[in-house]
């Protein structure tokens, strides 16, 4: 059915308006980073600086250990995702395939954990990590992020495994695999898009954390993650918003690139796992 011209115009207008709302904060971040600090308070504001300060990125990388912070963020995210995926692949597969007494209740319990706000867990986790002498160590946020990621990824993977016919692992078992062997040799390779989407989701969740890093890592500067590091650039009386914005761009860049390059793959993986 052909769309009427008026409908098309309305549709495009709605899409453009939505995109503008979504893209504007990123655009304004770039403008802020490239503007001289005193230009930021001008009224009316300038929508593009007269002389963009491209050198700001080099300057803040020289002044602050941004690369170290990014490295710590990456280490924490990779560690949390590795731990979470190991647990949630097995848990999601079990919830999808095995009918055991109490299985559905256990699944719902995990779902409930997913509903808890992260800040609710900060204090109990702090107590546990202090006893384990993990405060200040990257391990503290690897474990803390895993508590956030595992409920999400377990349910996402359960949904994905539900879409894979049971006959595949039955065929593998008849071909001589153990149940675990059938999962590793057949189900996991078949689930690669779902696994990748879920892992990236967990990575983003860990990368964007601030509350846990602020609580567990404040006294260990060498282990600061990027989000925590950026907040230290804000002074008590004076803040250089251009520098803070430039650092924010550097921190957001890896995730933006991941989304830009893998967007189609990500969305495909998620919806394939969602439909039953």
């Amino acid at each position: 059915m052909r769309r009427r011209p008026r409908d098309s115009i309305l549709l495009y207008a709605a899409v453009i308006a939505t995109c503008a709302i979504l893209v504007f904060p990123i655009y304004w971040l770039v403008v802020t980073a490239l503007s001289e600090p005193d230009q930021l308070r001008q009224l009316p504001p300038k929508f593009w600086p007269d002389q963009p300060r491209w050198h700001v990125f080099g300057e803040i990388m020289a002044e602050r250990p941004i690369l170290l912070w990014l490295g710590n963020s990456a280490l924490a995210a990779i560690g949390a995702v590795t731990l979470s995926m190991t647990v949630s692949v097995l848990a999601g597969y079990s919830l999808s395939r095995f009918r055991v007494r109490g299985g559905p209740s256990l699944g719902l319990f995990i779902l409930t954990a997913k509903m808890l706000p992260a800040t609710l867990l900060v204090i109990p986790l702090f107590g546990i990590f202090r006893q384990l002498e993990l405060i200040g160590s990257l391990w503290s946020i690897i474990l803390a992020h895993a508590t956030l990621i595992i409920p999400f990824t377990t349910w996402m993977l359960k949904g994905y495994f539900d879409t894979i016919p049971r006959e595949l692992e039955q065929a593998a078992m008849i071909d001589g695999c153990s149940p675990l062997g059938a999962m590793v040799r057949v189900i996991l390779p078949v689930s690669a898009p779902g696994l990748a989407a879920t892992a990236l989701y967990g990575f983003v969740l860990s990368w964007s954390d601030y509350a846990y890093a602020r609580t567990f890592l404040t006294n260990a500067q060498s282990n600061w993650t990027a989000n925590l590091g950026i907040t230290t650039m804000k002074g008590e009386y004076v803040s250089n918003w251009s520098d803070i914005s430039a650092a924010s761009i550097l921190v957001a860049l890896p995730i933006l690139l991941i989304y830009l390059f893998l967007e189609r793959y990500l969305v495909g993986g998620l919806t394939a796992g969602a439909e039953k």
Partner: protein
Amino acid sequence: MAGIRIEHVTKSYGGLSVLKDFSLDIADGEFVVLVGPSGCGKSTMLKILAGLEEASSGKVTIGERDVTDLSPGDRDIAMVFQNYALYPHLTVRKNMGFGLKMRGTEAAEIERRVTEAARILAIDHLLDRRPRALSGGQRQRVALGRAIVREPLAFLMDEPLSNLDAKLRVHTRAEISALHKRLGVTTIYVTHDQTEAMTMADRIVIMKDGEIQQIAHPDLMFREPANLFVAGFIGSPGMNFLQSPVADTGGRAQVRLFGQDVTLPVPLAALPGKDVIVGLRPEHIMAGPGAVSFEVQPRLVESLGSEQYVYVDLPPENRVGQARNGASDEDGRGNSLIARLISPDGRAFGERLTLSFDPARLHVFDAVTQEAIR
């Protein structure tokens, strides 16, 4: 190759019993078809044979080995699934060789056997493709290939033709039969299609509600069905059923069909005062006068070119609740009779028609127990 013995196997899910005391001896090299309507327990039995489901009780022996508690991989059987269950991430070659690789067979031997099986099934040009690049028929062949490269003791097939279109199904059916004759491997084949059962089986096991109704050669099952369910399930269209009380006429058992007295082909002694259901196959009704003739007004005539199905309303006194193919009588087919007339002579719908049958062709069933009376 090996014979298979299933002894008193049962399966229950909680209080629901899906298999009730299933026993069957399958000879080495035999092609046995388990057939029955959905939910009759045939696929459950196949999965128990494969080791994919655990029996609640009973024993399964393959060859001389008790395999009841063995895992699927240790039973030395191969299975073809309804949806083929090909590994989507592997090429056809790797799909077919997967089972051999799992058993530690040398790469050269795997290659030799895969190539040989691919040649037999005419899929040698597809070996480097992935399953998604194959048609339904090709996938079906690959699934068969994956089974035969293993050279197992037995093949288990779970409705392997049901995803194919009608034409390809007939073709592949013949191919599977030919393959069985060539390889001689014991085969247990599950289907709900009585035509597949009739055309492929050495013996048919017909099931209903978890119980075996009859085990017999297809021709014998067609000629001498054990009960009303088998009579209605085997044959296409299914057998016509007509109800009537039995009368003793000079020592002979007589029923009244279409307003006429008809002598039954069973001794009166077998029917002491019973109501019976009389069965008459659609192909045993002829156009024109014969031993027992009756005139009817067809309700519907379906022409298939070489033959016609003529639907006729049964007289109220002959109507039974039992529908064909063991289905419920929601469509009212228990109230009608179908005649399958070969070489139609252009009779027009709406004309009155004389049909006839030979009473010797009648099947007689107890109206209460539904068992055949001979």
